[in-house]
């Protein structure tokens, strides 16, 4: 009978490897923290994708090195893959009904929904208050360009190298 730990214990002391993984995890944490306060968040989808990517990388490091799955035999797939598939399906099943719910809200539902900045609406001049109409996100790059003066438009064209 083989020793169950022989696969990875053979390498002897792995402390150095674990410290390297630790360093990588710290750097990755710092990266996601930096992304959150960087201009990358102006386009939120980019920032979110980056941060989730960083999280997945960290999860991969923890699972393969700290949880030793890197050195385990094929049974690891039998236990982890079905659960991961189930987990993803579970979330995906919620998306049409819940994550996209406000796209099909009736007027009567909007009346009871929480609303963002009221001022974004009323400045736009729509009294009925369809929260999708007003885009209160201050970081929205389009928000500053609502009514650019002609000079400003010329300047930005010049800056982009277009005549």
């Amino acid at each position, binding site marked *: 009978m083989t020793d169950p*730990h022989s696969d990875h214990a053979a390498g002897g*002391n792995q402390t150095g490897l*674990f410290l390297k993984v630790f360093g990588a995890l710290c750097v990755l944490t710092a990266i996601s923290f930096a992304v959150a306060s960087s201009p990358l968040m102006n386009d939120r989808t980019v920032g979110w994708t980056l941060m989730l990517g960083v999280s997945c990388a960290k999860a991969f490091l923890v699972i393969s090195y700290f*949880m030793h799955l890197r050195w385990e035999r094929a049974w690891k797939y039998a236990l982890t893959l079905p659960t991961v598939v189930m*987990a993803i399906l579970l*979330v995906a099943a919620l998306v049409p009904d819940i994550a996209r719910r*406000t796209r099909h809200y009736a007027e009567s539902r909007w009346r009871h929904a929480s609303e963002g900045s009221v001022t974004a609406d009323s400045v736009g001049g729509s009294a009925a208050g369809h929260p999708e109409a007003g885009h209160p996100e201050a970081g929205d790059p389009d928000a500053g360009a609502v009514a650019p003066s002609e000079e400003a438009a010329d300047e930005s064209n010049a800056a982009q190298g277009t005549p």
Partner: protein
Amino acid sequence: MSHPHETGHAVALSYEPGLPIPRGKLCLWVFLSTEIMFFAGLIGAYIVLRFGVPEGTWPTPTQVHLVEWIGAANTFVLICSSVTIVLAFEAAKQDRADVAKRWFVATLLLGSVFLGVKGYEYSQKFAHGIHPARPRSGIYDKPDVYYVSAVGQSIAAQVSRLQQASEQGIAGPETAEQVRELQEVREHLVQWTSFSVGRETDPVRQRLALAAFAHAVYPLGHDAVLEEFLKDEAASLAAPLEAARASKKAAEERAAAITERLAAIDAAEQERAAREQAGETPSDEETAARTAETAERTELYAEQTTLDTERNRLIQEVDRLEGRTRMLAKVAELEHGVAEGLHLDLPLMIPSGNTWADTYFLLTGFHALHVFIGLFAFGLMLPLRLGASRATMVENLGLYWHFVDLVWIFLFPLLYLF
């Protein structure tokens, strides 16, 4: 011819488990797969709720008193604890029990630090009126008349509680001041808003007035439009206040004149009465004057009555306008709104704040519960010698602990940075 079956080779049988790992480890991995699905359900629910809220309503960290760097520091603490437990396992495998125990204790301490920081973060939320659920939670999703009335009712309840306390003599010295401040807010912020919103016919201005009220109670950030709206209102109060003060002054002057005239009439009447008693017969002129004065007095009395009503109304009007002006000045001065600035426990208007609080406390609460269970297991194993014979035990607990770390790796960006 040989008989291979008779050569006496006994078949060597040995136990082969279905999977080449200890049974305890297998159990733990099966448990962890169920845990993956459990947290995937929670995190998935959070994600779909988070991205399903009406556009632009999810609270920013500052609006709900979430401090990003504390979360990052806690992430670091948990990663460190993952390293220490893996080093404890390494040492236990090599039968270096003392070293293993040291790393083990370090993990226990780091886990406790994580939980302590979590507790501090929770207490900060509670101190700012953000609770997981009603009725403790006073979060409203939109600035509407329900929100205004909720603030009014909250103040009324607090005032009566404080007054009861001071009647029973258990009130502190600051109670009277607190009651005064609460009533000030109630009259000049809450009641003013309900009256003016009720009279306003333009729906856009109605919405603006309600949003400005919510902004005055708990600003969600710098909002130029609402601040301008409040400033305009303060400016528009100056002329009516001046007019009300002038009318009040005129009414008071007229009242004083009436009192003076009535006193003169009374004096003349007394003089006439004295002369009559002395036996003088009043002349025709005197009788005519008397009749005129009696009529005038009746008129003056009537005017005095209406003037009193008018003067009371003007006094109230001036008080109202002065109070509102004072309140608006205070709101402009307080950077964090009335609730924070005056340390009042008031309902808050945070769009999608309830969904935020529900998911935040659910996710961090279940994670903290897992951390706590891990720490409990660490505590149980603490007295044992962590030599090679217990390496599998340390490994299993380590696997669980890494999983807890893994969950936090996803929770941190999702809850703090998104």
